[in-house]
């Protein structure tokens, strides 16, 4: 059975696609440890005026490690499971609505009472077979988009770490005598500050395009029309994008 629902045709048994595996958990501890060093160095040594990190800090309003921790600790499976549950409910509503029309047709009575019933039944039937499933589908698709968007953020964070986690800036930062307090720390503080700022700016740059897509997602209203069923892949499938409604 296929019904016209909201902005498209969805099978009665439609389920939202699960977000792709981001594999962030495999590197999460090392990633958070590195960005913890970044946050600590930025706090301890400050930020160089004019460095790209300054614009990033103004934009994100948080240190890179704090941003990363929020992303790492949010599981896209939660909104996806909620979306899946809504799709199951939609199927149940469609299954329940189908026989009701047949029962209504078989009513063996006529007259003014039947006309009044038909008027009310038409409204209720439309709600059960179209309006409510459309709302459930729209909410489910929004939840699925949210899950895919979060998976995209997590994938971007993973890619950042794979690219920069063992690079020169990471080595400079990790080998700096942070916290020793003496001449050696002061002498190395400039290198450590720049390394931390470079890593932080790279982290922000990795997240920025995916976060921008979140703005489009936030503007998309569940139940609205014109959206796609699922986010589409971009950049070789590494980063997921939600098309503006």
């Amino acid at each position, binding site marked *: 059975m296929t019904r016209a629902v909201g902005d498209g045709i969805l099978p009665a048994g439609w389920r939202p696609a699960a977000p792709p595996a981001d594999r962030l958990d495999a590197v999460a501890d090392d990633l*958070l440890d590195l960005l*913890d060093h970044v*946050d*600590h160095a*930025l*706090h*301890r*040594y*400050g*930020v*160089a*005026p004019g460095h790209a990190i*300054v614009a990033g*800090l*103004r934009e*994100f*309003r*948080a*240190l890179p*490690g*704090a941003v990363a*921790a929020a992303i790492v600790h949010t599981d896209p499976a939660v909104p996806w499971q909620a979306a899946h549950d809504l799709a199951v409910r939609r199927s149940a509503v469609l299954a329940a609505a189908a026989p009701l029309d047949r029962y209504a047709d078989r009513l063996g009575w006529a007259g003014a009472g039947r006309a009044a019933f038909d008027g009310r039944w038409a409204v209720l039937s439309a709600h059960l077979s179209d309006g409510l499933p459309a709302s459930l589908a729209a909410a489910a698709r929004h939840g699925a988009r949210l899950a895919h968007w979060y998976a995209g953020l997590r994938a971007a964070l993973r890619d950042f770490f794979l690219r920069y986690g063992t690079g020169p800036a990471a080595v400079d930062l990790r080998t700096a005598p942070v916290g020793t*307090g*003496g*001449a*050696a720390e*002061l*002498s190395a*503080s*400039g290198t450590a*500050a720049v390394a931390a700022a470079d890593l932080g700016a790279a982290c922000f740059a990795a997240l920025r395009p995916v976060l921008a897509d979140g703005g489009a997602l936030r503007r998309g209203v569940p139940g609205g029309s014109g959206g796609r069923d699922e986010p589409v892949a971009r950049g070789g499938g590494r980063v997921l994008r939600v098309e503006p409604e």
Partner: protein
Amino acid sequence: MTDEREARVPREVDEAWIEAATEHYRRLERCRAVLADRAAGADVTVRSGDGLVEIVVTADGAFRDVRIAESALRSRSARELSRTVLAACQQARTAAEWAQEKLHEQLFAGFRYPD
């Protein structure tokens, strides 16, 4: 992130934090320049235990001079003298680090990094 560090590092960043952070960076930059300048101008002389070799190094670790007494050339074999020079150089490096720490203490006694 440890709880202790989490408590010190802000979770949110505002314009005041950015302004303070850039000013703090500039201040550290000035401190580094002062320390580097003073360390480059502070000579440390290290003499070997037998007094035959002197090494002059600046507090930033740059070797400025190696002085070997004439008598060393007559009383020591080349191998012995090489060992003495090497030991003096190692002592000079340690002395340079010590001197730089002393300069740091003198110049920035009251300086504290943000908690």
